């Protein structure tokens, strides 16, 4: 029997509210707002309150999937990333780098967004990079 509280940042939007996961016997049982968090001061919206529901959902993806013969097949990360790299290279060779675009998200960190645009410009070689907050 074990009961602990694990602080985290809500993964739903870019606001970054502090949440607290109530973990009983190793399983997330409930989500609470973090009272002392400078962003949300103990308040949450309906999405944040229900974070534990999707974490425990049986429909949640736990491994990467690769579509083969019209069906998604379980794959390892190495296989998935390798597969994506091969396909991106094919598209780039056949249609040019501007055939690829990258959309980044407010849900990931500033640094990850920076990396994504660097990847798009320096590795893929296109300026087709945009962000969901610019809609």
């Amino acid at each position, binding site marked *: *029997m*074990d*009961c*602990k*509280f694990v*602080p985290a940042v809500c993964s739903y939007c870019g606001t970054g509210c*502090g949440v*607290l996961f*109530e973990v*009983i*016997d190793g399983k997330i*049982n*409930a989500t*609470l*707002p*973090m*009272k*002392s*968090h400078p962003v*949300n001061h*103990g*308040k*949450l*919206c*309906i999405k944040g*309150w229900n974070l534990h529901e999707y974490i425990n959902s049986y429909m949640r993806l736990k491994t990467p999937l690769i579509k083969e013969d019209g069906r998604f097949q379980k794959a390892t990360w190495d296989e998935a990333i390798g597969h994506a790299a091969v396909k991106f290279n094919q598209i780039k060779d056949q249609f040019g780098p501007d055939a690829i675009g990258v959309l980044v998200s407010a849900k990931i960190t500033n640094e990850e967004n920076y990396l994504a645009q660097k990847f798009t410009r320096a590795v893929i070689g296109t300026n087709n990079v945009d962000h969901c907050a610019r809609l």
Partner: protein
Amino acid sequence: MNLIDQVEQLFIQDKIDIFLGYKALDGHLLPHGFTRDRMEELKALQVSEGRYSLEKIATHLTEKHPDIRIGMIARECNLRTLNLLYTWKQLNPENIETINISCCPSPLKPHSDCSYLEPKQTGAYKKTHGIDFNADPDTFLDDFNNKNRFSRWMYEFNKCIKCYGCRNICPVCFCDECSLEHASLVEPGTLPVDVPIFHLIRATHMAGRCIDCGLCEDACPMDIPLRLLYRQVNAIVSDIFDYRPGNGTDQSPFTIIGEKTVLEPKPMDAQLEGEKEYGL
């Protein structure tokens, strides 16, 4: 004897299996379950000014382990909640040990362990258009006429973003099925929420149950003065039944259906069942 020694004694005397208190983590005081297996953690046990509903955590633990014996830090609001949860048979008083801490400053103890010492601040616009957090429930009815009160409450209710935070944080919200999730009362998946029905459903359900801890008001992202609303509702209960929720473990006047009901009268479902039965 200080707090940590007291808890240690509870473990040594084998009175509890888990103790709910607070522990600092990355500069935040967060609730934590201290267990016998990790006694070394006890050194970090603290009292926190920010309040989390330890009773709600206790009910969650009891759901998973029905016979678990729980110790916890308790202020007055926690004790009222515990009394109410005993009344409604959500927790067994034999399985709960409390270590009471003061929540009022005194000459002996200038520091108080509650975030509520400073009254909430109400902004100027809210004062003129909405409702002052610190309005006196006794004089509130006399201070404003009907129309004025209605428009002020509607101003507050209209801000609601339907986060269900007031229900989620509430230590005395433990029904298996919640009326606020009943499709025929509150339409699922739509915003804005139906006002004032949404808030009045909750208010009626707080009658005889709300122990005035104020956690809902703390959790409300739109600063709706829920505490005042539930105080008004409970004033009626106290006038008619002379019952103050959480003041003792007397049976609530709302347990009229008998010993066995654990707040599951569910008239709405009874009606639905009936409709099914008669093919309506």
